[in-house]
C-alpha cells in the first residue's frame, strides 16, 4: 500500500500558459528548422547521373554530388565502345583538380599517378566499369572533368563532376 501524500504539501493549481522570451521567438524556430531540413534531406547525400558521347565512346557516370566531411563515396563510370571495332586501349581520366580535394582510397582497375585508368581490349558494344572511392577531405564545392578517350583520337567523352562537401 502506497503512503498517501499530504494534500497541503502538494503545489496549488496555477494557470499554465505557453510563453517565450522575445529572443526565443527567433531562436526556437531556427533550432527546430535544422532537424526538419535534415529530415527533408537537405544535409544528406545526393547522387547525380551524367552522360556524354564522344570519340566513339559513351560515358555514363554516377557520383555523389553532395555529402559530408570524412564520408566515403564512390564514382562509377561506365564506358561503352560504340565504334564497331575492337579498341586496344580506352583511357578514363579523372581531373586532378577534382581528385586532389579528396583522399583517394581506391581505383578499380588501378589508376596511374595521373588518376588515369586504362581499359584494354574493349570489344564493340562492350560496357566496362571504372570505380573509384573517395573520402571527403575539404569542405566546399569541388568540380572537375571525367573524360573517356581512345589514345590518339581527336574526340573525348567528357562529363563535369561537381560535388559539394558539407563541413
Amino acid at each position, binding site marked *: 500500500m502506497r503512503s498517501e501524500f499530504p494534500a497541503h*504539501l502538494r503545489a496549488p493549481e496555477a494557470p*499554465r500558459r505557453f510563453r517565450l522570451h522575445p529572443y526565443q521567438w527567433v531562436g526556437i524556430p531556427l533550432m527546430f528548422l535544422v532537424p526538419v531540413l535534415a529530415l527533408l534531406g537537405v544535409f544528406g547525400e545526393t547522387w547525380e547521373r551524367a552522360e556524354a558521347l564522344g570519340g566513339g565512346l559513351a560515358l555514363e557516370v554516377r557520383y555523389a554530388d553532395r555529402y559530408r*566531411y570524412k564520408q566515403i563515396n564512390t564514382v562509377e563510370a561506365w564506358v561503352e565502345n560504340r565504334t564497331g571495332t575492337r579498341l586496344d586501349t580506352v583511357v578514363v581520366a579523372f581531373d586532378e583538380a577534382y581528385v586532389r580535394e579528396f583522399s583517394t582510397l581506391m581505383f578499380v582497375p588501378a589508376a596511374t599517378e595521373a588518376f588515369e585508368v586504362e581499359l584494354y581490349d574493349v570489344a564493340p558494344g562492350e560496357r566496362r566499369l571504372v570505380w573509384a572511392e573517395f573520402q571527403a577531405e575539404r569542405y566546399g564545392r569541388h568540380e572537375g572533368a571525367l573524360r573517356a578517350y581512345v589514345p590518339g583520337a581527336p574526340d573525348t567523352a567528357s562529363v563535369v563532376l561537381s560535388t559539394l562537401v558539407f563541413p
Partner: protein
Amino acid sequence: METVLRVGFIYVFLLLVLRVMGKRELSQLTPLELVLLLLIPEIVAQGVVREDFSITNAVVAVTTLTSLVFVTSVLSYRFKGFGGFLEGSPSLLVRRGRFLPDEMARERVPPEEIVSEMRRAGVEHLEDVRWAVLEPGGKIAIIREEPGKDGPPPEEDEVS
C-alpha cells in the same frame, strides 16, 4: 536524415530508462551510478553519430536533441499529467516521526540516508520530523515539527 531519427529514439529510450530507474539515481552518485553515467554516453554516441564525424551531423544531432528537450519541457509544464509521468511525483518517507518502510523500500532509501538529511537540516531526533519527502529530483526534504504546536490543523493533515 537518419541522425534525427536516431537521436529521437535514443532520447525517448533514455527518458523511459531513467524514469524506470527511479528518483534516487538522479541525485546520488554512488560508484555504481557513476559507472552507469560514464558508460551511457560511450554506448549511445556510437549509435547516434555512427561513422559520421562531420560538423553538419553534430549540429543536426544537437539541434534535434535540444528541440526534443524543449518540446518535452513545454509539454511537461503545460500538461500536469505528462509532467507527472515524466518527472514522477514526490514520495513520503517519514510521517509524523515514523519511517514509512514500504515507501523507503520502493525508493531504495535506507534509514541512514534520511537521518543524514535530518542532520543536514539540523534535526536531531526522528520524532522532530513531521514529513520527510523524496522529491522527484532525488533530494530529500525534511519538514520539522514546529515546537509549541501540538500538531497540524486537521485540514493540513488531510491526505490525497
